[in-house]
């Protein structure tokens, strides 16, 4: 089983998929007046990346999350092609993007996790969202470790200026 449905009162765990998480972003700024900015917050589906051990031992007050998108909407908006989603992205061959299959039971469509859109969110805010029924699902062990490995690979890779030459 790839996903489970935790109870609202269960503590936050790595792999939790939470709807309507407020994500802050800067909309506009005046470079001469950086003490006041225009920002916005947008409710968005996210997945928790902070490791289970840190969450279980209450060592953190902020949680690392990544943005999630429905794959179909990205294809509809021509951000990605359906063949790219079904091919290299689904096979975890693209750094920074992670595919999750649909789950009728959890009401999840095929999704892409964008490991290049990361945010830290207060733990108590995420817990409040969960208690109000915004936790959609939890990615289960093995799959969440697979995601964590892909996350680590994305940020530990070393790109050379050019491939080595060969004869």
């Amino acid at each position, binding site marked *: 089983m790839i996903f489970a449905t935790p109870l609202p009162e269960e503590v936050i765990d790595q792999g939790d998929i939470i709807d309507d998480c407020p994500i802050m972003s800067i909309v506009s700024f005046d470079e001469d007046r950086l003490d006041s900015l225009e920002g916005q917050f*947008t409710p968005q589906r996210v997945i928790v990346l902070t490791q289970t051990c840190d969450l279980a031992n209450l060592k953190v007050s902020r949680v690392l999350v990544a943005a999630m998108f429905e794959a179909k909407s990205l294809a509809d908006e021509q951000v990605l092609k359906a063949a790219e989603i079904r091919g290299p992205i689904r096979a975890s061959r693209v750094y920074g993007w992670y595919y999750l299959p649909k789950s009728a039971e959890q009401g999840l469509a095929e999704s892409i996790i964008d490991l290049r859109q990361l945010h830290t969110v207060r733990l108590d805010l995420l817990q409040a969202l969960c208690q109000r029924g915004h936790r959609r699902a939890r990615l289960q062990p093995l799959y969440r470790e697979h995601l964590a490995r892909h996350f680590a690979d994305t940020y530990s890779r070393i790109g050379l200026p050019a491939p080595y030459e060969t004869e």
Partner: protein
Amino acid sequence: MATSIAEALHNVELESGRIYRCQVKEFWVELRVLGPATEPSETMIPESDIRLDAWTELPAPSGGRTVTLRKGPPDLPDPPDIPAEEYEG
């Protein structure tokens, strides 16, 4: 009349070691030129083992509520859990 790939490429200027990509009808085609001395073998790296860099940016969240943000103090890091013996010595 069907043309083989070898026939179609016969008059193309190919450079050893280069990878060419082009669109043919609705398909993207990749052509890897191995050179005259290299025979393709089963020991070559399988395509499925090659990782790719993302080629675009996924959209940032939009349609939210705009607010004015004011400068405040930075959040301090969560205190690390350092074992006591690390302080000895």
